[in-house]
C-alpha cells in the first residue's frame, strides 16, 4: 500500500456550508521542493482549503489531484503521505511527549518505532522532557512536538495552519529552518500564515485568498508584503 506524488493540484475547488460560500473555484498547484503560502484575511477560506488538501473536508465542486490521483482514487494510502499541523496541535495533554509520538507511530503502522520517536524527540529538543506530560509544556515546546508528530511518518505533503502563532523569535527561527530543511528534502509544504515577515523569508509561492476566492497566485519574488496589501486592499482577481 505505497503511494507517492510530486505535485498537488487544486482544480476549480469550491466549498459551501449550506448557503454560505467558503471557497469559490480556487485553482493552484505546488510541486515537491516548494513552500506554498496561503495568505488572506480571517474568513478568507485558507483553513477550509487546508482541510480539503488534508482530505478532512470534501469539496462541493472541483477536485484535488495528488500526482495523477484524486483522494478517492488514492484511498487510505494517501493519508500515509500527508502530515497536518493545525493550530490545535493534535496532541493529548494527558500523555507524555514520548507516549504521544509512540501512539501516532503505531497508528501509522511505522517500523522501528523507538528509533523514530527518539530521533523526533531529539529534533524537537525534548529528549530531556520525553517523560513529562504535554500539559506541562510551553506553547513553543508543544509546537515543536506537534511538528515532529506530523513529520513522524515522513509525509510528502506537509500542511501547516498558522504554525508561527504564539511562538517567540527563537522558536520562529527554528521552525523556519526546519521547514527549509523539508523543502530541501523535496517535500511539498503548504503554510497558512498571517506573518508576512516569515512569509518573505520562507515562501516560494503565494496564494492570496479573499472572501473564498483566489485573489492572486504567483511565485513569491520577495515582494509578498506589497503584493498582499495590493490584492487584499484592492480586491484584485487573479486570472
Amino acid at each position, binding site marked *: 500500500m505505497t503511494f507517492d506524488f510530486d505535485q498537488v493540484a487544486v482544480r476549480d475547488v469550491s466549498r459551501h456550508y449550506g448557503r454560505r460560500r467558503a471557497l469559490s473555484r480556487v485553482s493552484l498547484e505546488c510541486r515537491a521542493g516548494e513552500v506554498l503560502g496561503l495568505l488572506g484575511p480571517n474568513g478568507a477560506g485558507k483553513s477550509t482549503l487546508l482541510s480539503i488538501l488534508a482530505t478532512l473536508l470534501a469539496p462541493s465542486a472541483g477536485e484535488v489531484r495528488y500526482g495523477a490521483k484524486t483522494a478517492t482514487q488514492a484511498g487510505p494510502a494517501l493519508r500515509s503521505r500527508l502530515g*497536518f499541523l493545525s493550530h490545535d496541535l*493534535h496532541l493529548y495533554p494527558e500523555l507524555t511527549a514520548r507516549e504521544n509520538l509512540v501512539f501516532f507511530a503505531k497508528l501509522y503502522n511505522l517500523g522501528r518505532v523507538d528509533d523514530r520517536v527518539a530521533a523526533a524527540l531529539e529534533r524537537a529538543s525534548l529528549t530531556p522532557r520525553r517523560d513529562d506530560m504535554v500539559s506541562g509544556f510551553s506553547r513553543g515546546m508543544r509546537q515543536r512536538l506537534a511538528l515532529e508528530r506530523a513529520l513522524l511518518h515522513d509525509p510528502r505533503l506537509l500542511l501547516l495552519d498558522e504554525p508561527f502563532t504564539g511562538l517567540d523569535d527563537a522558536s520562529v527561527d527554528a521552525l523556519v529552518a526546519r521547514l527549509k530543511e523539508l523543502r530541501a528534502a523535496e517535500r511539498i509544504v503548504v503554510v497558512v500564515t498571517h506573518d508576512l515577515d516569515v512569509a518573505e523569508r520562507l515562501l516560494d509561492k503565494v496564494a492570496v485568498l479573499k472572501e473564498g476566492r483566489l485573489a492572486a497566485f504567483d511565485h513569491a519574488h520577495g515582494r509578498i508584503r506589497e503584493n498582499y496589501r495590493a490584492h487584499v486592499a484592492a480586491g484584485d482577481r487573479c486570472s
Partner: protein
Amino acid sequence: MFLKVAWLVVRKDLTVEVRSREILYTTVFFAVACVLVFAFALVKEGRPLEDAAAGIMWISVAFSGTLALGRTFERERHSETLRALMLAPASRPAIYVGKLLGIILLLLIVEAVLVPLIGLLFHAPIASRPFSLIGLLVAGSVGFSACGTLFAAMLVRARSRDVLLPILLYPITIPVIIAGVRGTAALFEPVPADDLAQMWLALLAFFDIVFVTLSLWTFEPLMTE
C-alpha cells in the same frame, strides 16, 4: 491491523482516563446521584414502588452513559485529536471500535457500582440470576454505546452538541432501553421469569448486531465532512 488499531485507541483512552479520572468520577457520581434521587422519591417507609428498580437502573445507565459519551469526545475535540485520528491511514471503523470499547468499559464500571446500590435501596434480587443480569447489562451497554459513539463522534464539531446528542440518541436507543428494562424486570420478579428474560436478551443481541453493523458501515462517510 484492525484489532491492533482498535486496541491502540482503547489503551490510549484508558491511559488518559487513569491519569485524569475525570470521566469515571463524574459519571459514577452522576449515576449514584440519579439512583439516590429516585430512591428518595419512590421508596416509602422502606418499601420501594413495585417494578421501579429495573426502570431506574436503565435510566441511570442511559443518563450517565450520555454524560460519558459527551465528555469522552469533548476530550478529543479539545486539541482536535479526533482529526488527527481521522488523518491516520488506519481503518476508521477500527478507530470507531476502539472508542466504542472504551465507552463500554466505562459503562460496565458504572454499572458495577450502580447495580449493588439499586439492590440495596430498592430491595432488588440482583443475585438471583447474576449471569442473566450481567448478560442484559453487557448487551444493553453495547447497543447504547454503539449508537452513542457514532453520534458523539459525528457531533464533535457541532456547536450545540450537548443538546443534540440526547435528542438524537434517546429516540434511536429506545428499543435497547425498553428491552433492558423489561428483561431486568423479568429477572427481578419474586420468581424470576427466565424465559421472558432470555427473550429480551435475544432481542438486545439483535439490536446490538444491527447498531454495530450500521455504525461500522456509516462511520467513515459520516466523519468526512
